[in-house]
């Protein structure tokens, strides 16, 4: 047992950090630090810089543009990226649909989609949740009917993140009504510019426009846009959701936020001195840091295990990552709220593209707190995670 990173790993960390220092546009970094939303342009610009460096789809197999890094290197890269901070790669393309396509897609699909995902020539969004299908995703109703060499798609998706930017969607559609609910679903991709696709924004409690409803009204999609086999979509969805086990803890994000809390708390006064000197506040912050350290170690255990024994059998500790990771992210936003106290109140106005830049940066702290309530809901709510632990780990 040894906690130290090797000299090579340390050198890799330095290299990654230096690259971020030299290449992340300063304004992009500042907005992330301040908890602002970025415009589409800002994000795409950065992702293309990353892709040019060869790090855009780092965890993909080498033949599709991946790096061939070890699990530990991936861990280091993500940690540095999150804590610099720089925008993380667009998960919908890079972590979700990309791996499904290179694992289950045909050669033509791989050639057609993968390079465009890597360079974000296409912005992808995820068509999974529906108004009546949240945690019980397999009950989804959006229907794809085969008509000759076409699919005709009707239905509605919701919580579709940044669909307003999207060129493409990967969609779970019901293709067999008679089968058991998990067995009648197919994984179909299509253009968001298709006739019959309507995107309607949902304003979230932070005032932002991150998510949307997407309506399909007789959308015609070429049959060849089916990925893998018909009615096997549920398997691909499970593969996709199980793919990113370690990134979900977002340890780097929380670390960065704790540094920010410390920075702010040494400036904002309470009872005539910086609030960082208030014992009650300090102990709360220490409690959060300790939890985060424990999570970091748990994540390292999972990473080291994957490195040694492959990804086949997940380390049971990996189930901890989503639950604790989301709780800690929420605590950090709570602590930020506590630091600025009454100055949390002023409300900022969001631009149409989802960005916001208008007001003093403290105005982002309350929205970030409100917005972060989502992290214990999405990606399988923490209650679903507890069901998973109970069944898969404890055998209940």
């Amino acid at each position: 047992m040894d906690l130290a990173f090797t000299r090579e790993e340390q050198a890799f960390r330095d290299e990654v950090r230096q690259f971020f220092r030299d290449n992340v546009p300063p304004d992009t970094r500042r907005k992330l630090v301040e908890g602002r939303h970025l415009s589409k342009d800002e994000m795409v610009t950065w992702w293309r810089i990353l892709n040019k460096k060869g790090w855009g789809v780092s965890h993909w197999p080498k033949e599709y543009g991946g790096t061939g890094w070890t699990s530990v290197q991936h861990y280091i890269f993500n940690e540095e990226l999150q804590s610099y901070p720089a925008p993380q790669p667009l998960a919908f393309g890079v972590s979700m649909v990309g791996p499904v396509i290179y694992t289950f897609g045909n050669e033509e699909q791989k050639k057609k989609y993968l390079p465009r995902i890597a360079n974000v020539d296409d912005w992808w969004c995820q068509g999974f949740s529906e108004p009546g299908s949240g945690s019980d995703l397999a009950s989804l109703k959006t229907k794809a009917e085969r008509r000759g060499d076409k699919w005709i798609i009707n239905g509605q998706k919701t919580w579709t993140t940044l669909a307003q930017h999207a060129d493409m969607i990967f969609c779970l559609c019901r293709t067999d009504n008679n089968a058991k609910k998990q067995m009648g679903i197919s994984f179909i991709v299509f253009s968001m510019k298709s006739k019959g696709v309507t995107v309607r924004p949902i304003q979230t409690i932070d005032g932002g426009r991150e998510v949307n409803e997407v309506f399909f009204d007789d959308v015609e999609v070429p049959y060849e846009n089916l990925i893998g086999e018909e009615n096997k979509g549920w398997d691909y969805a499970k593969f996709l959701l199980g793919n990113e086990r370690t990134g979900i803890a977002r340890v780097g994000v929380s670390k960065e936020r704790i540094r920010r809390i410390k920075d702010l708390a040494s400036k904002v006064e309470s009872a005539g001195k910086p609030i960082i000197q208030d014992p009650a506040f300090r102990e709360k912050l220490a409690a959060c840091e300790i939890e985060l350290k424990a999570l970091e170690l748990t994540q390292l255990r999972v990473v080291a295990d994957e490195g040694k024994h492959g990804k086949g059998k997940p380390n049971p500790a990996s189930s901890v990552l989503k639950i604790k990771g989301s709780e800690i992210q929420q605590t950090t936003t709570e602590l930020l709220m506590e630091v600025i106290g009454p100055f949390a109140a002023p409300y900022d106005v969001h631009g149409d593209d989802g960005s916001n830049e208008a007001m003093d940066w403290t105005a982002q702290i309350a929205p970030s707190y409100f917005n972060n309530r989502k992290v214990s809901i999405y990606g399988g709510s923490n209650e679903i995670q507890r069901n998973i632990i109970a069944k898969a780990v404890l055998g209940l």
Partner: protein
Amino acid sequence: MDFDLSEEQRLLKESIDGLLTDSYDFEQRKKYMAEKGGWSKTVWLKLAEQGLLGLPFSEADGGFGGGGVETMIVMEALGKALVLEPYLATVVIGGGFLRHAGTDAQKAAHVPGIIDGSKTLAFAQLEKNSRYDLFDVATTAKKKGDAYVIDGEKFVVLNGENADTLIVTARTKGDRRDKSGIGVFLVPANAKGVAKKSYPTQDGLHAADITFTGVEVGPDAVLGNPEDSLALIERVVDEARVALCAEAVGLMDESLKTTVEYIKTRKQFGVAIGSFQSLQHRASDMFVATEQARSMSMFATMANDFEDAKERSNAIAAAKVQIGKSLKFVGQQSIQLHGGIGMTMEAKIGHYFKRLTMIENTFGDTDYHQRRVADAGGLI
């Protein structure tokens, strides 16, 4: 970065797990508890036979040169089996003082007896008003020629009842809460002027309150610098905290396992109560708490080798906080999920809960260590 055990460490784990599976089930434990002194000399000698009592000592001193990971493996196993024998007091703490500060003569006088199981030790540190501050020492050691004369009272000395040798913190200089002027002394338990009041502790172990009245010891009793040994005490107590973290992980593992088995078999309303989601979620949270504790126990084990003493102490304090929070949750919920049976002495779960609870209050509780981490500016 590597969290796997080496081949040798794996064998060590198998060997101690095997020994305890054979000789330490809950019924056997009850018998050991009823023996004189409250633990089993036979088991102690078996631990000696397997080399476990000599584990952390260097080969030159007749030991096996084991490090933190080896101690972690042993302490986890001892926790899992709820072992009563004084491994912490004798090998981890007593052995720790000898390893870090013992002269060749002191080691020659004490280490062989520890390794072969013939002698045990106890650490007389806690005082009426010291609570968790290791530097808060009112007991005095006054110089008299070459010798020292010790006067004072120590409380809740684990294994104090049975130990052959006491390791006593006492002040040679300064005021009660001065950080300098503290010495550490090896005192024979049968020395003139040593009076003990022994009792069982809540978790089934044994301790003693010990009064020192004009106890005279020679220069060979001094461990380290008699006027400035706080760093030594902190070093050894940090090792004890790390060991307690590992013991607690073993206890939590077993508590969780026992509780999950129980809710799988206990039926109400015609079904196993483990089929109810409220209980499943509680058990899942117990699993999360246990894994977070395990991570921090590993961290503490590795931190014990940090060169910077401040960094080491801060990391170990953080681990003790996580362990304290986890053990409270896992312990309390284990009882809750067992329901009425968890309240009885006859079910083993209550005994795990009690040991876990006592660990929180040993060498600094959660609040104490959280404050230390906060005062040190956190971890990030």
